[in-house]
């Protein structure tokens, strides 16, 4: 088995002791290095809470989290954050720099990256997200999709080993979204980057290595997309599976289990 990037064991968290329920309860899962893990689940299921726990913004009341072999605690979280980057769910009101390039550079200053290296990385990151032309703009005065790109550039510049994306693509137009996903896939292979992506987009989840399904603070399932979409039929599904289920419902010929889109087209051609 490959090395683990994320190892979460029995983690429980509650925002407020006066509340009746845990935001997360007894959550366990692992993510291998260089893999893409999608986290899905309904609104309020605990996905963002999990992301916040993984970078030590909040502490579990029980259980342990290991990132790249290191147990996460008050002391180690600073070291861990040097190699783990997160894009939060809402990029609005999170900008620190007065210009786009300052904002992207901000995280690098904390890492003590030399100035010439820093310029290079900022330029590269802004180019990747297609925002180089806006480098001197005020990040608060951008369109929604532009803000989201700047936020993504901010973590790409850190060149993390673990990238946590909390619905980081929702405001991107479909084409930019696809291009960015392709870039991240490439980085994943080239740099052995591990990606944990929280998403409601089932086509995106279907293209990942594994899926973690959260349900009311519990892990409902952790498996490959093929198993999950074949077996968890109450979950929303990617297009190929929606078509397969519909054909079955109409009493027509259909593959006996989940097919990717390309496999489904092939099946129809055969």
């Amino acid at each position, binding site marked *: 088995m490959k090395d683990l990037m994320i190892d979460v064991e029995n983690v429980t968290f509650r925002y407020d002791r006066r509340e009746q329920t845990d935001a997360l309860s007894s959550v366990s899962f692992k993510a291998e290095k260089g893999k893409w893990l999608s986290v899905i689940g309904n*609104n*309020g299921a605990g996905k963002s809470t999990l992301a916040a726990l993984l970078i030590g913004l909040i502490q579990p009341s029980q259980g342990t989290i290991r990132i790249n072999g290191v147990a996460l605690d008050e002391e180690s979280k600073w070291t861990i954050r040097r190699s783990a980057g997160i894009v939060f769910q809402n990029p*609005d009101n999170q900008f620190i720099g007065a210009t786009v390039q300052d904002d992207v550079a901000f995280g690098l200053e904390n890492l003590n990256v030399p100035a010439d290296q820093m310029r290079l990385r900022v330029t590269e990151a802004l180019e990747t997200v297609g925002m180089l032309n806006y480098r001197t703009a005020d990040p608060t005065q*951008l*369109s929604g999709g532009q803000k989201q790109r700047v936020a993504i550039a901010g973590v790409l510049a850190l060149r993390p080993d673990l990238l946590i994306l909390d619905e980081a693509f929702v405001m991107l*137009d*479909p084409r930019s979204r696809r291009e960015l996903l392709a870039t991240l896939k490439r980085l994943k292979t080239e740099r052995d980057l591990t990606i944990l992506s929280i998403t409601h987009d089932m086509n995106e989840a279907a293209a990942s290595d594994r899926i973690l399904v959260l349900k009311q603070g519990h892990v409902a399932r952790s498996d490959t997309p093929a198993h999950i979409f074949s077996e968890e039929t109450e979950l929303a599904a990617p*297009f190929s599976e929606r078509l397969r289920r519909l054909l079955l419902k109409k009493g027509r010929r259909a593959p006996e289990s989940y097919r990717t889109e390309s496999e489904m087209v092939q099946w*129809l051609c055969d």
Partner: protein
Amino acid sequence: MAMRLRLDHVTADYQIGPVRSPRVLREVSMSLQPGTFTAVVGPTGAGKSSLLKVLNGLLLPQSGQAEIGDITIDGKSSKRLLKAVRKRVGLVFQFPESQLFAETVEQDISFGPLNFGAHPRNVHALAEKVIAQVGLDESILYRSPFSLSGGQKRRVAIAGVLALEPEVLALDEPTAGLDPTGKEELLSLLKQWNKQNGLTILMVTHDMESVARYADDVVVMEKGRAVFHDSMRKLFEDTERLEKWQLDVPDARRFQLEFEVRSGTRLPRVCLTEDELADALIEVGRV
């Protein structure tokens, strides 16, 4: 009461301190019939959010004018006039978090109706009604809006605008961040009001699935201009033009195009949903 929306050569930019930004809307003219469900699509920075802001009086035209029924907005419109516009046109922002501010969800939702003269006695029932409409439990009314998950916040922001009972709903990517069930429920609800009560809806979205399933018409924005305004079906028929505007097709259509290339079989018509695709596949005897 049926209210027409019209933009007449609207050009707009943003004031950034002492300077003005480049134009974000250029000579935009369009007319929206009452009771239509119109999707607004286009790449990042094309001016979609700015268009909605003009209709709601948040961004004033630098030249040209916007007509909201019998109210005309131009560069010199008064605050009082703009308030009247905001009562007619409810706007759900792209980032709903920036719309929430009160101590409890209930106060947040009640603020708009009270501001527009609703009787305090009635607003509680109103809050209960709209919170259920966006699929949240009533108990959430007593929580702080800042202690909610992203999708819960978005639902509350939408509920706040629904509570205004506007004649026109302008929604800026309202389903971003909603889970699949929440998204379907919201869109069906909007469609139902649109059909039954003649509510005019203008919805910015990047999701071509929603466009295909719910919109009557589509406006395509590109670099501050409205380059297309016609029926949804017309938009998806011309693949080349979509390419030029950097727009995607719905999943079913993408699947269809791939199938047609690989099988050498042409399906009898353009399919935009899985239902249409399944029927076409049945028709040509593939399944």
